[in-house]
């Protein structure tokens, strides 16, 4: 269980303002979806939470402790906040089982046997037990994604960040991801999800935030935000989504 507090988060890439004084509270076990056009700052916001991107101003806290607090040590934050990337970023030179056990063994000091046993259990949970010895490039997109999720979950994180994980998937696999995310929420994991799939956001999110120009313009429960958007930019964005048939 973990809550995230974001205050006044600002980030420039060179002279370009990517995040503009973003405030966001994510309660423990809450699932928050970030939506918005490309370049609206969704992914950057996500990457600031686990310090892949260092913000220029503002603060992020996990259960009230700033994420750059020395008490986290070098790996404490990564143990509690895991991320799944859009392109999964599995290590192509390692078998699935080695991809999954790399961090438990090298970072958290588990023995190979203990780590592999746990990895096989986790793979079985996602129906991937037969692929432990495969290389990532031998797997389909959906299978790679499940491996990436298992890899992220191996440290038993409290927070899971998902960066457009449905973007590269066949439509019929999106439903499967949906089930996985629902089961993770039942396990008490707090999630922040960047997505382009409005149907997906509507199904999993407790709250949806619409980003535009590095700001959260509007947020609310998915039904309300999708049916009665209040900000004109949100309306325009959803209008375009409806026209392209993606709601």
């Amino acid at each position, binding site marked *: 269980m973990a809550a995230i507090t974001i205050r006044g988060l600002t980030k420039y890439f060179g002279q370009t303002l990517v995040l503009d004084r973003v405030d966001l509270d994510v309660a423990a076990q809450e699932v928050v979806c970030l939506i918005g056009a490309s370049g609206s700052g969704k992914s950057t916001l996500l990457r600031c939470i*686990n310090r*892949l991107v260092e913000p220029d101003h503002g603060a992020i806290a996990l259960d009230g402790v700033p994420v750059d607090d020395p008490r986290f040590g*070098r*790996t404490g934050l*990564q*143990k509690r906040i*895991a*991320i799944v*990337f859009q*392109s999964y*970023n*599995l*290590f*192509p*030179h390692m078998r699935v089982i080695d991809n999954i056990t*790399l*961090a438990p063994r*090298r*970072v*958290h000091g588990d023995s190979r046997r203990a780590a592999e046993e746990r990895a096989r259990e986790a793979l079985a949970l996602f129906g991937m037990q037969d692929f432990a010895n495969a290389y990532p*490039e031998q797997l389909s997109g959906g299978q790679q994604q499940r491996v990436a999720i298992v*890899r992220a979950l191996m*440290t038993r994180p409290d927070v899971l960040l998902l960066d457009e994980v449905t973007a590269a998937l066949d*439509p019929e696999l*999106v*439903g499967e991801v*949906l089930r996985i995310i629902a089961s993770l929420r039942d396990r008490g994991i707090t999630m922040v999800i960047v997505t382009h799939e*409005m*149907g*997906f956001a*509507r*199904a999993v999110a407790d709250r949806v935030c619409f980003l535009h120009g590095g700001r959260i313009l509007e947020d609310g429960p998915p*039904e309300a935000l*999708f*049916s*009665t958007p209040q900000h004109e930019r949100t309306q325009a964005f*959803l209008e375009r989504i*409806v*026209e*392209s*048939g993606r*709601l």
Partner: protein
Amino acid sequence: MPDPETPPHAGARIGVAPPGATAMPRAPVPHGIRPMPEGPPPAPRRQSFDWRAALVPTLISAVSIVVVFGALGWLVTSAEQWPRIRLQFFNWDHMVASAPRVIKGFWTNLQVWLIVLACIAVWALVLAVIRSLRSPVFAPFRIMVVVYIDVFRGLPALLLVILFGFGIPALQIPGLPNSGLFWGGVAMVLSYSAYVCEIYRSGIEAVHEGQRAAARALGLSEWQTLIYCVLPQALRNVLPALMNIVVALQKDVALLSVIGVRDAVREAQIYTATTFNYSPLIVAAGLFLLATIPMARLADWVNRRDRERRLQITG
């Protein structure tokens, strides 16, 4: 706005025209399920090698080879100067007489090649790793590596071999080896490492940034990221380029002959100096080719395998 009751991904909106779209006038098209006969047509028959069909082309190419090379051979050997050339370069007696010494010298080449190669592989990797470390603490070391590469890549290997192989033993510094072979080898390592370092580095930089991000997000330190994630992928990227260096080095070891190392070239030269016959050098040339051509084929094979892996046409 859509009806909020509509469940997502229920397929409810499949084929629904976007608002405002008007249907184009079209001719009526029949709609129905297509009947399929049982079983697909058979797969194409496996091609077996047809000797009879291959016989005529093989014969033609054999005759063509004999005619063309025979004509070339006749042209060369019928030249007025040919007997002198043969005597100077292809004298069988001199070849046989010098062969044991040249082969012994070539054994030195191979030994030096292997030792120098191992040292280059390690030293260049150390340089490349230092150069790709991103922490500001390592700034002075990064600068040192950049200067090193500029200097040693800019100097002819021959100059370095002479400078080290003659110069350092002449200093008679106590505690340091005085062998010209040792210092010549050091010069080769220093010179080649500058090139190989750049090859390694290009491989390191070709590893996608997302891989580093994934490693960092898993909590790996910069050092662990390098060892477990970046370097294995980088080495795989540059293996074909490294094979080229391996072949090039095999023959460049002969540079050491100028500082008196008795390698194949030196031994041949010594023989030539007393007999004024150049056949031993042809023996040495043959030995070099015997060694480098299989290496070049191996490099080709590595290249092809790498290409197949990249294009994923394996299996």
